[in-house]
């Protein structure tokens, strides 16, 4: 007799993922799907897809889903959650979506303390449109719109979304994680599951920032891109829990 120790989660549909080889989106998708299945809320969940590479995410998650205008996923999630509060609602957004055009929506969703979960995928570039510079692009990182590397003098320093969100009094849970190796993938799943648990318990706004790779946008083979998350992104974007108002003795940042 043999026992299945790992297989594709039933939280994902059979649709082949449209992402490039080695893209972290696929890993993050299945962590979200596995968490929803393990918490037994898959059938009761509504996913809000963003604009960006993951614009078709509603095809991949085996739950209900809608797609929002660029950056407006938290506003759509707020509406849905307030109208049908017994549904589990999450947004799945990239850094071009959440950290630039959608900054107002994400900050005010957290500010209102709306009880939904945000999965924020930070790969430091605009992947879908061709690897342009994002607010999260590192200093000296080359992109198609910063061919000599991002210059601080003209574009400032990369925005640290988790640190920013951790200052918002009504936010309940903010954590930054990474998916560059299997140990960190396990920690990421724990964080995503915790965020959904907070929502199920009605504890308020939760966001998990996941450092991810964009092998094509970064012009690197997937294995090298995964190493760049650890060597390039993590020194500037330190991992850790930035806010957890329900932790023992914790009141956040």
């Amino acid at each position: 007799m043999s026992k299945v120790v790992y297989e594709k989660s039933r939280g994902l549909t059979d649709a082949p993922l449209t992402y490039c080889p080695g893209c972290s989106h696929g890993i993050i998708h299945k962590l979200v799907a596995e968490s929803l299945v393990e918490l037994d809320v898959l059938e009761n969940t509504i996913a809000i897809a963003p604009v960006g590479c993951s614009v078709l995410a509603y095809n991949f998650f085996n739950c209900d889903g809608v797609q929002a205008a660029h950056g407006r996923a938290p506003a759509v999630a707020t509406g849905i959650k307030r109208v049908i509060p017994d549904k589990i609602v999450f947004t799945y957004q990239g850094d071009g979506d959440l950290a630039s055009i959608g900054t107002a929506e994400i900050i005010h969703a957290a500010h209102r303390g709306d009880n939904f979960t945000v999965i924020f995928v930070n790969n430091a570039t605009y992947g879908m449109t061709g690897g342009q510079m994002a607010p999260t692009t590192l200093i000296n990182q080359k992109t198609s719109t910063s061919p000599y590397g991002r210059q601080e003098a003209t574009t400032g320093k990369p925005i640290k979304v988790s640190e920013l969100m951790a200052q918002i009094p009504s936010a309940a849970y903010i954590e930054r994680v990474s998916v560059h190796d299997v140990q960190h993938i396990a920690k990421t799943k724990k964080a995503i599951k915790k965020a959904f648990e907070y929502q199920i318990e009605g504890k308020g706004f939760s966001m998990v920032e996941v450092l991810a790779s964009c092998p094509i946008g970064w012009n690197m083979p997937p294995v090298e891109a995964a190493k760049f998350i650890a060597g390039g992104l993590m020194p500037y974007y330190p991992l850790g829990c930035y806010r957890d108002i329900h932790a023992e003795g914790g009141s956040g940042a």
Partner: protein
Amino acid sequence: MAKNLITIEESLCKGCFLCADACPKDILSLDKSKVNAKGYNPIQCTDMDACTACAICGRICPDSVIRVERDA
């Protein structure tokens, strides 16, 4: 003797090599003799006897193409 088994959905594999890089036994490699409909060389297991069914390959695969079974 029954063995651990990994099954690869070759038609969906994009040959990104993340599983092969992460495999502690170094028994995964690209199958250069095949090209799937997407145009990639799929991954293959070169030594199933050495597999410990740790499932690291499955967990790191972005496209969820690997299923891992352990001999119980």
